[in-house]
Every structure is written in C-alpha cells, then in structure tokens.
C-alpha cells in the first residue's frame, strides 16, 4: 500500500489551494479613443469560475476594460487597444481570431435589458441558431429550456414562449438577456451594470443567478453598487482615472483595502 506522508498530503492540498487558473489574461492593456487615452497599462487577470467585480467612479475605465475582453470596442470609431489580452492563452486581438466566434465564447449582458422584438423563444434561440448549435427543433427546444432554467426564468415563461420578449417586466427582460447570453454556452460572461435598471427584488434574483452561474462560467461584472460588488464577487478590481488601482480578494477590498483611493471610494469619502 502506498501511504503518502502527512507532509506530502499537506503539500498537495496547498498546491491545489494556491493553484489559481486564469481564464483571461490582460497585459499592459491601454485603450485610446482617438487622441484621448482611457486606460493606462492595465495588468489584470480574470480567474476561472470566479466572479470578478470592476469598480470605480464614472469615467475610470472599468467599462472600457470590460469591453476589451470581447472586442466590443472594435465597433467604436477611433478606438485603439494596445497590449495583450488572452483567452485560455490565445491572443484575442490576433488577426486570425474570428470575432463572432470570440463573442460566442465571451458573452455580454448590458445595463439596459435589450431583448429583440421577437418572441421569448426566438430571443434565446437566435444565438444557437446562427452558431449552428442545434440540429433540429428538439435540440433547439432543449437549449431554450435549459438556458431559461439557468437564468431562473423558465417557470415564469414556459407557458408563453411565443409571446414577445419586450412584454416581460424589466427584471424578467434582464434574465431573458442572461438566458440569451448563456444559450450559446459561453465560457466567460461580461456584465455591464446588469442591475442598474432593476428594482431590489429583480436585482436580488439576478445576484442569486450570478452566484449559481459561477459554477459553470467565469463572470466579470461592472457595477456602481459597492454593496453589490461586495455581495456577488470573489475578486474586486478598483479603477481610477484609467489606472488599475488595486485588485484583491473582495473580502479584503471591502474590509481593509491597501490603497487610500480605494478606501475613499468604497466609503463614499472624497480624499
């Protein structure tokens, strides 16, 4: 029988604990809108199956950084990104990368719920269809049901899948958008203030959802609500004037941050 020594077991456990796997790597990321520089050499890695919250005052660059992660900035005229951003080690700004493919792997949920003016079913089925993820109606039905279940919306809409998505309440619309994002089985979900247009109950539902989604997805969320960042994330990155001020365990950031700017921001003080 092969019995490991106590020290060897401890070492193995230790390695597992300290073995952090990064889903996305951001190295010296700078973003320019024309002549204006919006991000300054940001080095920020996103951990796998972790919720990372990006916080900071308006105009600090947190949304800009979020948008570099699935090349949403490509659509903005005069926007230029330098540095390296990698998904599973592959540079996503490499010319060989198919952006549509990338955005299927790195999905996004926006601030305002933006369902297509189509049925609830079609809203969810659209992505899988254009990416050819379903062979036939039975498979598509299964994807739609599973996605709506993952988004915690299935029970509320299962009897009216053919009704318009825009007829749902704000909170339901946002969960529909989350269902739409997860329908293409992305690996990373980016959320840009997903709850800022929702009431407290709908917000709590989305937060509960984020907590559940974390098991299968890597999530990066931009939020203006300090309490929300503290509640939903495990890692928090604080941005200020285009710089990454600090990134650490969320518990640490909200109890005893290292940087005075973070301290002032989370406590609602001005330095």
């Amino acid at each position, binding site marked *: 029988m092969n019995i490991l020594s106590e020290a060897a077991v401890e070492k193995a456990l230790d390695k597992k604990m300290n073995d952090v796997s990064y889903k996305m790597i951001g190295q010296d990321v700078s973003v320019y809108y024309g002549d204006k520089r919006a991000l300054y050499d940001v080095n920020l890695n996103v951990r796998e199956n972790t919720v990372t919250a990006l916080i900071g005052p308006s105009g600090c660059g947190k949304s800009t950084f979020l948008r570099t992660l699935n090349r949403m900035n490509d659509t903005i005229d005069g926007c230029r990104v330098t540095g390296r951003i990698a998904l599973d080690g592959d540079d996503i700004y490499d010319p060989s990368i198919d952006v549509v493919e990338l955005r299927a792997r790195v999905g996004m949920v926006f601030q305002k719920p933006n369902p297509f003016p189509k049925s609830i079913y079609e809203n969810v089925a659209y992505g899988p269809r254009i990416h050819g993820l379903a062979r036939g109606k039975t498979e598509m039905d299964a994807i739609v049901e599973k996605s709506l279940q993952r988004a915690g919306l299935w029970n509320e809409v299962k009897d009216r899948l053919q009704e318009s998505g825009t007829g749902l309440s704000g909170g339901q619309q946002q969960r529909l958008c989350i269902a739409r994002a997860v329908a293409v089985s992305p690996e990373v979900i980016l959320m840009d203030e997903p709850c800022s247009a929702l009431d407290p109950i709908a917000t709590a539902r989305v937060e509960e959802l984020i907590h559940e989604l974390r098991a299968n997805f890597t999530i990066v969320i931009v939020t203006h609500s300090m309490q929300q960042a503290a509640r939903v994330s495990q890692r928090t990155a604080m941005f200020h004037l285009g710089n990454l001020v600090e990134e650490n365990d969320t518990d640490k950031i*909200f*109890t005893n941050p290292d940087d005075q700017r973070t301290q002032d921001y*989370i*406590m609602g*003080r*001005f330095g």
Partner: protein
Amino acid sequence: MSSTHIVSIYDEELKYLTRRISEMGGTAEQMVADAVRALVTTDGALAQKVISEDVVLDNAERQINEKAVLTITKRQPVSSDLREILGAVRIAAELERVGDLGKNTAKRVIAVQGSGMPRKLARGLEHLAELALMQLKEVLDVYATRSIEKAKAIRERDDEIDAIYTSLFRELLTYMMEDPRNITPCTHLLFCAKNIERIGDHATNIAETIYFMATGAQPEGERPKDDNTASLVAAEPSA
C-alpha cells in the same frame, strides 16, 4: 480621518458616537474615583451618589447602540467606517461594565462601614485604583488621538495592576486568618479589589478595540498577565 464623507450627515453620525463615548468615559472615570474615595473614607453619601449615577451609563450605552444600528442600516458602512461603529458599540459595553463595577464597589461601602479598615489596606486599594484609573484615562485619550503605539503600551501595562491585586489578595487573606471577625469586611474588600482589577482589564480591552479600529487587525501576542490569585492558598494555621 483624513477625508470627509460626500454625505456630510454621515460624518455627523460618526461624530455623535465619538462624542458619546468620550462622555461615557468621563462619567465612568468619575464613578470609579468616587467609589474608591467613598470606600477608603467610608463616605456613605458619596457611595449613594455613585450608585444612582450608574443609570446614566446604562442609558448612554443604549443610545449608542441604537444610533449604531441606525447608521449601519442607513449607510451600510464598510472598512474603517464599519470598524469605527463596531468599535463604539464594543467600547460602550466595556464602559458600561466599568460603571457597574464602580457601583458594586460603592454598594460595599455600606457593608464595611464601622469595621475600621487598616490604613495600610486602604493605601493598597487606593494605589490599585490609581493605576486602574490611569489606565482608563489614558485609554480614553488614545480613543481621542487613535495612537496605535499608545494603545499597545496600555495593553502591555496591565500586569502592574495584576501584581498589586495579587499582593492585596495575600494581605486580605492574612487579616482574615488573624481574626475571624475580619472575614466579613475583608471579603467585601476582596471583591472591591477584584472590581478595580477588572476595570484595568476593561481598559485593556478598550485599547485592543482601538487598535482594531485603527488597523483592522487584532494586536499580536498574548497580553501580559500577573494575576496569580487563582492558585493562591492560605497557609495552614500553626498548631
């Protein structure tokens, strides 16, 4: 605090807590000083005054707790703001206990009246009280200045009080063995000495809380202890 809140009334709420703690500290200090003076001078009227003052601290503690709950509810404080509020709640509880110990000491004044406390014993108690009161006074100063160094120094000085308490304990034991009629007053005095020694412990707790409020960490290492009374036994009377 280096900076102020964007919402200025938030600062007012925190200042209210600080002010009330300082007031409680002043009242507790006065109560303990009066209780010990009443004890060594067997002044029943002064003792009565101390007893009736305790309600002031009870009320203050309750008001501080209510304000803390409201502020947490409204502001959802984080980081050092949260520690400031938690610290105020903890310190208020410590000061309320100090008041109780002062009151208990004052109550015993009536019981020891007329027993003729030996001068030496009274001096011992006074000295113990001086040290405990100094601890209390200094820790309240540290609360105002938030000097981490001083908070650490106070915490490390508690063993002086413990040492004097241990010697008083021995002395009282000796008196009781000398004459059984001393047992009643000496038992009361023993409780008084213990009360005062406990006040020193509360001052030390407050020092630790202030350290936590300022740094977010607990002070490292065990606090020094020199209270050996738990294992003290009276010598067998010689045949």
